[in-house]
């Protein structure tokens, strides 16, 4: 969707401010929001694309007033309600009265403390072993789609309808634009594509500078 999360190329946000000696978390609640989001992810009820897609549905008017882990919390609340695991009504009732009881939910994939190290040390999540033919090759000139889907996409606005050069074939991965819209994994090749800065931004950009973006087969056609 053409949401405010898709920030590449926008103006008016001011300078980048780096906080010296920044801690991983700035408030105790951020630790908790971080941990429950990651732990709940291991329930296997959604993947990271669906998580990102849900966060992108935060109303645009609220986006810049919402802190990073608040956005995670928003996404988690919505995902849990959508999957019927923690309903919005249950949250409202528990907030009014912390002693309101709830029934246990039986789930096989509850992350146990003893499994945290192994689970978080495991990288594999989105790459697949599916035998899918590559539609493009390293060295190919490609043209990106011109699309404006209302759902989730990992094709940033600033790269749409642009010409680039395939530099790497990363192999076969879950297609975020499909998975994020609850349409299944649709595995396909991911490529790294080099876009000249002038192709993206016009003659004001320095010739020779470039932006490299990882895109899926469906995003690309021969140029």
């Amino acid at each position, binding site marked *: 969707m053409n949401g405010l*999360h*898709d*920030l*590449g*190329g926008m103006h008016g*946000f*001011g300078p*980048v*401010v*780096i906080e010296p000696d920044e801690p*991983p978390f700035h*408030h105790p*609640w951020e630790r*908790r*929001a971080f*941990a*429950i989001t990651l*732990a*709940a992810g291991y*329930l296997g009820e959604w993947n990271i694309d669906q998580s*990102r897609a849900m*966060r992108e549905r935060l109303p645009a008017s609220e986006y*810049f*007033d919402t*802190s*990073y882990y*608040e956005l995670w919390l928003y996404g988690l609340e919505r995902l*849990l309600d959508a999957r019927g*695991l*923690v309903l919005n009504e249950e*949250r409202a009732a*528990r*907030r009014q009265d912390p002693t309101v009881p709830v*029934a*246990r939910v*039986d789930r096989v994939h*509850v*992350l146990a*403390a003893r499994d945290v*190290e192994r689970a978080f*040390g*495991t990288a594999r*999540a*989105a*790459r697949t072993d599916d035998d899918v033919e590559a539609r493009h090759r390293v060295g190919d000139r490609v043209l990106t789609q011109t699309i404006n889907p209302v759902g989730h996409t*990992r094709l*940033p606005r*600033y*790269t749409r309808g642009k010409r680039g050069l395939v530099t790497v074939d*990363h192999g076969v*991965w879950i297609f*975020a634009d499909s998975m994020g819209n609850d349409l299944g994994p649709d595995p396909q090749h*991911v490529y790294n594509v080099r876009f000249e800065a002038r192709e*993206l931004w016009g003659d004001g950009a320095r010739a*020779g*500078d*470039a*932006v*490299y973006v*990882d895109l899926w087969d469906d995003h690309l056609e021969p140029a």
Partner: protein
Amino acid sequence: MPDQDPDHNHDDDDVGEHRDHDAPLSDVELRVRTLESLLVDKGLVDPAALDAIIDTYETRVGPRNGARIVARAWVDPDFRLRLLADGTAAAAEHGYEGRQTEKLVVLENTPRVHNLVVCTLCSCYPWAVLGLPPIWYKSAPYRARAVIDPRGVLNELGAGVPDDREVRVWDSTAEIRYMVLPERPAGTEAMSEAELTGLVTRDSMIGVAVAQAPAGAG
């Protein structure tokens, strides 16, 4: 989301339970507490697992991991070649692998090319080697400007790149993660690998800074 005001979430109209120092819980604190208690009571998360997750990213996984890899690459030419050819495998040699780093690509900064890493769409970052991303990396100014004005961003941050050097910006749109191998500072020939590790800052591995000069140099 680029909220950097620590008081932002403390709404005065949301008075709930009181903490030790009598400050009312903010709306977001109440939401987190409510959701965590429901997840635990329903048996959907294990409280001990939450503590283990927090401990992992507060004390064990952070930019020191990446710094050790960089220092090794500076002193060991064979490791440098392995790192640039297959970052995932080379990082795994150090035991650094896992979540948010399914495929790691390491980009070498040289006198001809300067690499810079961003995620314009959210906050993708190589957790296994750099830990959790800093606020500035997740902020609107960086995500908006890194791709359209990388030289301006670098100038402002005191890491300006000469005109004859190509700037390459890497936007992390899929599950491939990027880390920069910064240039080894001059005057470090006599330093040990452990000493070199201390010169490698988080920001130099994102590409918005150069590695620190050794003390007394310059």
